[in-house]
């Protein structure tokens, strides 16, 4: 199927085009954006990002590791320190807290890589340096017979140019 690339200068145009394309059933589309714009991401995929699960798992793993490590190590070779119980929760909370943040942070980074499909060696269809300047690119796969219609639809949504690109 041919792939069409529409170039936009405003996020509003992209949102309009994405909404129309999706309404017409062209769902195989992607947007290149030079900066984050919530409205575009919302239009392309309204589902909340799955990165949240990674952070949650990492944080929980961290807090469990923090307490488990400190308590087990204190019991493995018990020495009375400062007259406190071997497994002394208040001081260990500091360690557990730090590991919560540490594991949460590392897992969030992994989440970014997994959910964002990075690293990737593949250059997306129609990607060029202008989309890391100040323009937006909307690529959409359309059947041969709908090319003209989609072309018009993109231009109606303020696309400054529309072209066919190699998929």
């Amino acid at each position, binding site marked *: 199927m041919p792939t069409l690339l529409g170039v936009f200068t*405003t996020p509003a145009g992209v949102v309009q085009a994405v909404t129309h394309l999706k309404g017409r059933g062209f769902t195989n589309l992607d947007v290149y954006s030079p900066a984050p714009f919530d409205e575009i991401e919302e239009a392309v995929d309204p589902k909340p*990002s799955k990165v949240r699960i990674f952070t949650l798992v990492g944080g929980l793993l961290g807090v469990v590791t923090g307490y488990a490590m400190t308590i087990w190590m204190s019991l493995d070779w018990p*020495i009375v320190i400062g007259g406190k119980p071997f497994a002394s929760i208040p001081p260990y909370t500091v360690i557990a*807290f730090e590991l919560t*943040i540490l594991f949460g*942070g590392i897992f969030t980074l992994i989440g970014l890589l997994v959910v*964002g499909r990075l690293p990737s060696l593949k250059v997306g269809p129609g990607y060029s340096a202008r989309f890391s300047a100040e323009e937006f690119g909307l690529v959409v796969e359309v059947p041969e017979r709908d090319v003209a219609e989609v072309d018009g639809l993109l231009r109606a949504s303020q696309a*400054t*140019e529309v072209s066919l690109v190699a998929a």
Partner: protein
Amino acid sequence: MTPPPGESIAAMIRQTPVPPDSQTNRDVMNIFMTTPGLGWLLLVGICLGGLGGGAAVWIYQIYKGLGIAGYSHPIFWGAYIVTFVFWVGIAHAGTLISAILFLFRARWRNAINRSAEAMTIFAVFTAQLFLGIHVGRIWKAYFILPYPNQRALWVNFKSPLLWDTFAISTYTLTSLIFFYVGLLPDLAIARDRTTGWRKALYGSLALGWQGTSRQWKSHNRTVLHLSGLATPLVLSVHSVVSWDFAMAIVPGWHATIFAPYFVAGAIFSGFAMVLTVMIPVRRIFSLEHILTNYHFENMCRFLLLTSTIVTYAYFIEYFIAWYSGVEAEKTAFYLRLFGPYWLSTWIMIVCNGVIPQLFWFKKLRTHIPTVFVISTLINVGMWFERYVIIITGLSREFNPAVWGHYTPTWYELMIVAGSFSFFSILFLIFLKLFPVIPISEVKELVIHERAHASGQPAGAH
């Protein structure tokens, strides 16, 4: 339009001239793509000299032992620990600006957050050097980690020094992740516009980032979550550092106010350092249109706020020493003001408490040379604050048998100077290798403004 008849037209359309690059890209790329000038080389040269001196002294100290430091009974925490705490404090501005101001949606942070984050990382690296320097027997430094060993001995998790190890390591890694995630889109911008070794460097670091909506979406989420994690982390790290002192019963240290007092001081010194570094950077690279006086004024407001908190903490320390009726506490604080370290104490009070109050005046907040001088004085004052806390505390404990006097030796001062060189070299290299202004975040504002101002899409600049 009729359906295009295949490849020929597509090929023709593909040859559309590419519009000129965005102004923001060019402005920021200019900073790190241009060949380093004489000034830069000179600065690096000076810093290399300082670093070499510090490194030589450290090697000598490893050979000779900690005896060459000015340590004498009962003061075994000296300039190394003072400077360690100083650098950890400096490290607080970056993550505060990136995380807390992000959560508060303070838009003005966009222009300064990258440089502040870089400073955070370099300051933490510098601080960590001092852990190695201070322990003396560097080859045993790994004893602080809970690693499995033949004697099945574990570290003492009830010790604040262990908490500190975990806090500082976590802070280093989390700040590094934060910095890298923020840098990712900008690395892709650099990759698309460079050739040769730079393209290879940025290309491999950018991991194939193309700014697809899936990537931005997970990126936004990641930044949000990292901010959420880093906010309590920033507040915890210097709290933990303060507990290194506050958990001991030394007069002048054993106070519950220490955690918030240290955190405010850290933010205070961190912002001052960002100003001290960024004012010359802005001047040299003419970034006035990105890093405006508005940014600097807002940072001055932060300085004013944190200075007031710190001054309040100074006051409360004296009040509690008097109110507690504890003889040792009263003496400790009397000696701070009028004892052998009176000069350090007064430098600290004047630089941190009195001079920043000048920022009440808008004229002074917006007068850049004044801001530069005051922020530098704050850096000096904050180093002396740690000096006062650590040295005066240890020099007069409860019993005359543990009274003593400490003066830093030249060896120690050379290592301290070397640490400033180390920090500066890292920052100078960063200036010439990575975008010092977060390009995509600034661009976000530019595109927003353009869309709102005209209501009609304008082309790229």
